[in-house]
């Protein structure tokens, strides 16, 4: 990425020669295309290929513990997303000033500071959800997704890409949280968005949906083992889809190869 920044600065300098201008325009277009590809790759990595919840299996402790309702899942997902973006941006912005020997303590410092800020803000403005998330809010500090992205991506890339990476990784994580929340809440309580007013204010109590009437709660779905089982099924589903796509690709490739052979023989 550092190459890109140098070309950018050379583009900015005044050059009158048209030929060079043409070459630069092409270069700029290439640069743009490369950036676009980079963003696309980041999105795919964060949301699917390298999903922090389903593939990297990072941050499982909050993932399994607070997903008993959709509201909790959204609350923790948003908090993690916010911390992830902020920490990625900061780590990326300061990457030239941080010596590599002390980068880890500095990253931890930054993450801890952001988590504390988010915690204080949630305590002040979404008190109900702050209480139901309990210990898992401060535990975001120890969520490996965050320091993992800071170390693996943000510390080597420009601010914009790092922010986008944070957004995508955070979204990927939040989506898994919400999906688990939906499954567990429907199976366990037969509702959706129960207690959404704690997170979004009083108007949100209309969001509550009674999906099905349960005489007694399905305990397994509410308790942690249910979270593990649902998580396992989600991972299996993802792998099944990936395998399906892979098989399809192989079939396509084989067809192409056959055609080549025919051409060669003739």
């Amino acid at each position: 990425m550092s190459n890109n920044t140098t070309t950018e600065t050379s583009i900015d300098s005044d050059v009158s020669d048209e030929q060079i201008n043409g070459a630069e325009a092409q270069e700029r277009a290439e640069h743009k295309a490369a950036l676009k590809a980079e963003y696309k790759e980041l999105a795919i990595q964060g949301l699917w290929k390298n999903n922090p919840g389903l593939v990297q299996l990072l941050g499982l402790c909050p993932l399994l513990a607070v997903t008993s309702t959709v509201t909790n899942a959204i609350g923790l997902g948003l908090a993690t997303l916010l911390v992830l973006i902020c920490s990625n941006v900061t780590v990326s912005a300061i990457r030239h000033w941080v010596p590599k020997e002390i980068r880890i303590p500095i990253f931890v410092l930054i993450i801890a500071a952001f988590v504390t800020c988010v915690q204080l803000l949630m305590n002040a403005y979404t008190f109900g959800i702050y209480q139901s998330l309990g210990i898992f809010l401060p535990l975001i500090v120890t969520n490996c997704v965050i320091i993992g992205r800071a170390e693996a991506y943000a510390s080597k890339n420009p601010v914009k890409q790092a922010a986008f990476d944070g957004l995508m990784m955070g979204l990927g994580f939040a989506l898994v949280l919400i999906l688990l929340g939906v499954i567990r809440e429907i199976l366990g309580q037969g509702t959706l968005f129960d207690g959404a007013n704690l997170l979004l204010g009083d108007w949100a109590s209309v969001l509550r949906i009674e999906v099905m009437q349960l005489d007694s709660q399905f305990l397994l779905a509410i308790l942690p083992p249910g979270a593990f089982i649902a998580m396992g099924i989600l991972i299996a589903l993802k792998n099944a889809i990936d395998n399906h796509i892979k098989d399809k690709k192989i079939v396509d490739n084989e067809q192409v190869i056959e055609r080549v052979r025919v051409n060669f023989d003739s």
Partner: protein
Amino acid sequence: MSTQETPPNTNSPEGNNPTANNEGNTQKTQSGKTKSALNIAVSKNTKILASFAIACTAIVGLVSELTKDKIKQQEQQQLLNTLHSIIEPSRYDNDIANDCIMMSSPELGSDKVQTAYIARKAGKIVAIAMTSIAPQGYNGNIDFIMAVNNDGSVSGVRVLKHQETPGLGDKIEIRKSDWVTRFSGKKILSENDSRWAVKKDNGMFDQFTGATITPRAVVKGVKSTLNYFTKNKDSLLTRPNACGEVNKIAPSKDNSITRSNSDIKNEVANEQ
């Protein structure tokens, strides 16, 4: 840190270990030079780390300062909501959240200091809301708050914190079930009132399907707290207000009230 930069030192003729070099001051050999380079690197890193620590602390401090009042307000509101749910707001007219006493007794479930909020109407005590603990929950302590009327009957009970099994024991929460409202209006006749137990133990309170231990613990906790209140009623109600910060705020409030009262009196006098 030091281990990463030691290699040059190990080649030096003295063969001193780096920590020794760090302490020695008067070496003029090659190792002395590397030592100073290492010192520079260390002090530079130290400065960077320190400045980051200061910056992060400053940010957290700032946010904490900005949200402090709001958090306090939220907590107060939460407390008021709970108190309102167990003592009808129309029954008292004092600033109940800031009118409290501290108490401690094994009958309140632990040796922790518990708070009690006093509801007064026109200066007369109407009810008292006591925080307490039921120690024999299925999964640890159950924190609750209960309000007792002046005549010794229960005004209301709410569970504040618990770790009972979701779906079974958590029906003691008002969000999940109205079980906890059954305490309202109940009185205790003697210290060992046998009606204060779950139905399984021939008492007057329902247990839950699949969970007897939790309601049993709550009933026992409420009973014991109620006993504590009946025994110590007189000494409890005469204790001075213990809400520390309030003592600072309250006088100014009183002043403003008396001032406004006197102003009104003056106006009335002038009119006459």
